[in-house]
């Protein structure tokens, strides 16, 4: 297994590579052990009736998710998606084409759930679910970052992310859990965040941060924890508490709240915006993780819930929180009503930190010294879950405009990467969807190829030296893979890192 991990060469022409069957068939992420599985209520690795459990789960999901049922039936193998996945472009492995990834499951669906597949399996490409098939699922459904780029191009909107999520849920039900994601979800249930930082460590970190910022600015900028009656509860990815460059954005949020005079707090119980429940496609896990936030909001009595820079967390917050836990408008069931009464509905609930910052900037409540960012020549990387799974503001495509507006308001030099690699056609960083683990480094490096090509383009054309984004996974992934492509790892950073550099604090 000790293969040397190398970045693939840039493509000479911007076209799909020739297929290389089997190129990534040995990419296998570590399996969750029985203890990790048990923590989530999943069976362990050696379940005897794995076959029946898997097929049973598949049948259950086909009855619970219209997306899965329709997407299994509707594909015509037209090939529209075949050259859209960054993992295919980076590896050439045909099973990384979205349609072929779907077909890993569709072939089994046809065999067990459709008439032609039962009568003429060969004719329609149907096959039995064997251990080999399940292993193949495990390997290739962990080479999908659930970024949804394929769904933009599919004439029926088939979203491979939905199929990957279903596949992972079936794998979990058959005892084939992924160590990385499932271990993290377990930590959130027990401790409250993905990194397993207990409350004491959190207090320590935040106090240290206040001292650092005081040294830097001479001001008492607070990073409060568990403050009852605060206006805003900030839910941010736990990487923001200590990882580089994430922490610079956390400092940015603190300065925005300080400068605008908004009282805010973090929560030790809900010290995590990330929700890996989405990655494994499990509604109950996703809901259980999100419920910590509802509970924290109720206990702290906050009026607003704001989410920090995290891509999939914002998708869960924007698109799912109202469904899962009633954070949003229009919930009229008894369980969400208490929260509805407490929240201030003059503001969007939940709100993205970029929406908050941009609103304050537009109203001139916070102002910037753009020259402070003059050393940065900036481009913006749209994170997939923000771009294709959520929105911002009240306008169509606000998730593209608002972060860019902020960048342009706090800095002088901004350049877009080429068309077809940004906005709703953005390329994933290569590390999303539960793939941000060292045992998948090979696919992560290869999967970032299309983004690196686009970045290289603006580096060559404009001397770009800073790629801003609003996602903790993107930040960690790029920090790791940029050097493989010959870039400085500090080229990646957060939008609020730039805000932090430029925001005027002095005369408040």
């Amino acid at each position, binding site marked *: 297994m000790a293969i040397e991990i190398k970045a693939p060469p840039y493509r000479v022409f911007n076209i799909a590579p*020739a297929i290389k069957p089997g190129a990534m068939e040995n990419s296998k992420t570590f399996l969750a052990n029985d203890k990790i599985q048990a923590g989530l209520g999943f069976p362990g690795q050696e379940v005897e009736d794995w076959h029946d459990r898997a097929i049973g789960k598949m049948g259950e999901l086909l*009855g*619970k*998710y*219209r*997306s899965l*049922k*329709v997407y299994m*039936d*509707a594909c*015509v*193998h*037209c*090939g*529209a*998606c*075949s050259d859209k996945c960054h993992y295919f472009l980076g590896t050439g492995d*045909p099973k990384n*084409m979205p349609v*072929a990834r779907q*077909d890993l499951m569709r072939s089994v669906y046809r065999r067990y759930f459709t*008439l*032609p597949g039962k009568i003429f399996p060969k*004719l*329609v*490409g149907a096959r039995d679910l064997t251990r080999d098939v399940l292993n193949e699922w495990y390997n290739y459904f962990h080479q999908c970052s659930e970024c*949804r780029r394929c*769904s*933009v*191009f*599919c*004439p*029926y*909107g088939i*979203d491979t992310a939905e199929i990957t999520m279903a596949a992972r849920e079936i794998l979990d039900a058959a005892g084939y859990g992924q160590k990385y994601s499932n271990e993290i979800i377990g930590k959130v249930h027990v401790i409250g965040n993905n990194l397993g930082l207990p409350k004491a460590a959190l207090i320590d970190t935040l106090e240290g941060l206040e001292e650092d910022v005081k040294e830097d600015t001479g001001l008492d900028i607070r990073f409060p924890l568990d403050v009852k009656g605060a206006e805003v509860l900030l839910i941010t990815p736990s990487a923001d508490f200590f990882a580089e460059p994430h922490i610079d954005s956390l400092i940015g949020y603190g300065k925005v709240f300080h400068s605008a005079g908004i009282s805010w707090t973090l929560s030790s119980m809900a010290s995590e915006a990330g929700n890996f429940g989405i990655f494994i496609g499990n*509604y*109950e896990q996703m*809901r259980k993780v999100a*419920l910590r936030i509802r509970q924290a909001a109720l206990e702290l009595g906050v009026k607003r819930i704001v989410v920090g820079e995290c891509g999939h967390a914002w998708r869960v917050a*924007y698109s*799912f929180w*109202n*469904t899962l836990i009633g954070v*949003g*408008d*229009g919930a*009229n*069931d008894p*369980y*969400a009503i208490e929260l509805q009464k407490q929240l201030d509905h003059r503001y*969007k*609930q*939940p709100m993205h930190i970029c929406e908050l910052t941009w609103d304050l900037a537009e109203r001139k409540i916070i102002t910037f010294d753009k020259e402070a960012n003059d050393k940065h020549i900036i481009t913006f990387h749209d994170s997939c879950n923000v*771009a294709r*799974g*959520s*929105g911002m503001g009240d306008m*169509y495509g606000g*998730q593209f405009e608002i972060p860019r507006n902020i960048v342009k308001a706090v800095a002088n030099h901004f350049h877009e990467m080429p068309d077809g690699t940004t906005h*709703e056609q953005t390329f994933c960083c290569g590390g999303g969807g539960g793939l941000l683990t060292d045992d998948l480094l090979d696919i992560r490096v290869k999967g970032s190829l299309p983004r690196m090509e686009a970045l290289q383009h603006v580096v060559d054309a404009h001397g770009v030296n800073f790629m801003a984004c609003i996602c903790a996974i993107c930040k960690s992934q790029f920090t790791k893979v940029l050097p493989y492509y010959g870039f400085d790892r500090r080229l990646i950073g957060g939008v609020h890192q730039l805000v932090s550099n430029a925001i005027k604090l002095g005369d408040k």
Partner: protein
Amino acid sequence: MTMTIMFAVLFYFAAGLFAVGLIYRITSYARIPAPLKIPTTPAPRTRFGVVMLMAREVFLFQSLFKASLWTWLFSAMFHAGLALVLLRHIRYFVNPVWAWVEFIQPFGIYAGFLMVAGLLGLWARRVLVDRVRYISTPSDHLMLALLIGIGVSGLIMKFITHTDIVAIKSFFMGLMSFSINPLPTDAMIYTHLSLIALLLIIFPFSKLLHAPGLFFSPSRNQVENSRDIRHISPWAAKLESGK
């Protein structure tokens, strides 16, 4: 007369299976809940916006246009051709023939060529592009063969062998009022009709379900209003009572 009766039975069977199968599929799609808001964003913020989006997908193949110009072109040729050809065939089922059906007759003829050309283009892609070849199953090829067979047999009757279309019309008008009128003895019409019956029969069991499927695709048919209106499915609502 034996052939006439066989075809009459075949068409009742095929049409019945087509209708029942499709209704069954559509009701099952409609019944299965979509528990989460998953429109591919940015998505329309209003129901009207979604209707417009869906219209662009149905009539213009907007997403496919973004994906691949060649596939879009061949696919548009085939579907537009097929649509015109189908409309042209209304004349076999109504009497007197409606004026607009009369009007499109000349266009419908050439649409037959367009349709077959589009199908050949799609087939060429399936064979020549390594990615598409890799994902193709035998049924994908047979489906194209079937559709081309229908188109070509129709064109042959129009331009080469000719057939007694008055008798064919009387056969189908008869079927619709449950009486059996003789079908002309003609190998080409037997071929044409058999292939059409086969298409009707496999429709509800095959990838042809992409047609109704599109309307039920949550990534396309949902309004992006998740923060404003709570969206919850019956099975998910049951979880609420636990907490």
